[in-house]
C-alpha cells in the first residue's frame, strides 16, 4: 500500500510506524527529518522554518516516488508524510517508512524515497533568523544523492 500525506499538522511518527509495521512485512525502515536550528549555515539559530509547496503537484510527485520504490524493492507498504507551512526547530518535517520482506529492500526503499523527494518534490524552504526571512538554497549533494539511484546500486 502507498500512503502519502502533505499537510500542516504535526507528524505522528509513532502512528505512522505502527501502520507500516501492520503491513505484515518482516522489515520496516524509517527516516525522520527534523527541523534543525542551524538548518543551513552557522549564522544564528533558525526561529521558524516555512515550507512552501505546490499543491496537487506535490502529492503526485510523492506518490510517484513511493510507487517507484514499492515496485523496485517489492515493498508491502510505503509511507511518505511531508509537513508544510510553519515549523519550529525540533519538529518533524518529513517521515518515510518502507516495509518489505527483507531488510536490504526496506532500507534501500526508504533511502531512495528521501533522496528522491529532496530533488523531485516541489517544496521550498524559507528560514527566519532574528526576524529576517530568507529562502534556502538547494544543496548540490542532493542531486548527486538522487542520481545515484539511476545507475543501479
Amino acid at each position, binding site marked *: 500500500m502507498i500512503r502519502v500525506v502533505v499537510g500542516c499538522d504535526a507528524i505522528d511518527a509513532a502512528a505512522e510506524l505502527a501502520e507500516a509495521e501492520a503491513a505484515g512485512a518482516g522489515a520496516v525502515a524509517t527516516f525522520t527529518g527534523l527541523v534543525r536550528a542551524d538548518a543551513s549555515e552557522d549564522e544564528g539559530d533558525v526561529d521558524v522554518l516555512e515550507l512552501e*509547496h505546490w499543491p496537487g503537484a506535490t502529492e503526485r510527485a510523492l506518490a510517484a516516488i513511493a510507487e517507484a520504490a514499492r515496485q523496485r524493492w517489492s515493498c508491502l507498504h510505503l509511507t511518505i508524510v511531508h509537513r508544510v507551512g510553519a515549523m519550529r526547530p525540533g519538529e518533524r518535517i518529513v517521515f518515510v517508512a518502507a516495509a518489505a520482506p527483507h531488510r536490504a529492500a526496506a532500507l534501500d526503499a526508504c533511502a531512495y524515497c528521501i533522496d528522491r523527494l*529532496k530533488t*523531485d518534490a516541489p517544496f521550498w524552504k524559507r528560514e527566519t533568523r532574528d526576524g529576517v526571512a530568507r529562502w534556502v538554497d538547494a544543496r548540490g549533494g542532493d542531486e548527486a544523492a538522487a542520481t545515484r539511484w539511476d545507475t543501479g546500486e
Partner: protein
Amino acid sequence: MLYVAWVRERVGTGQEDVMPPADAKTVAGLVDWLAGTSAGHAEAFADRTRLRAAIDGAFVPLDSPLGDAAEVAIFPPVTGG
C-alpha cells in the same frame, strides 16, 4: 504562468496570463521574453542556473519546447525534506 518561492516574490505575483511572441518556442525563450516585461521579472530571471520549470505540472529542462502548454511554472531548485 505560475511562479513559486523567491521567483514569485521578485516577479511580484504568483500567477499571470501571458501572450508570448511566436518566436518563444522553448521555456528558456519564454523566460527571455518575460525578463523584458518588468524590472521584477528581470531580477527574478537574472540567473538562469537557479531556475527550474514545469509544463502542465511536469518538471522539464529549461530548453524544452513549449508545444501547446496551458500552464508553465518557473521556480527555484526545490529544497524539501
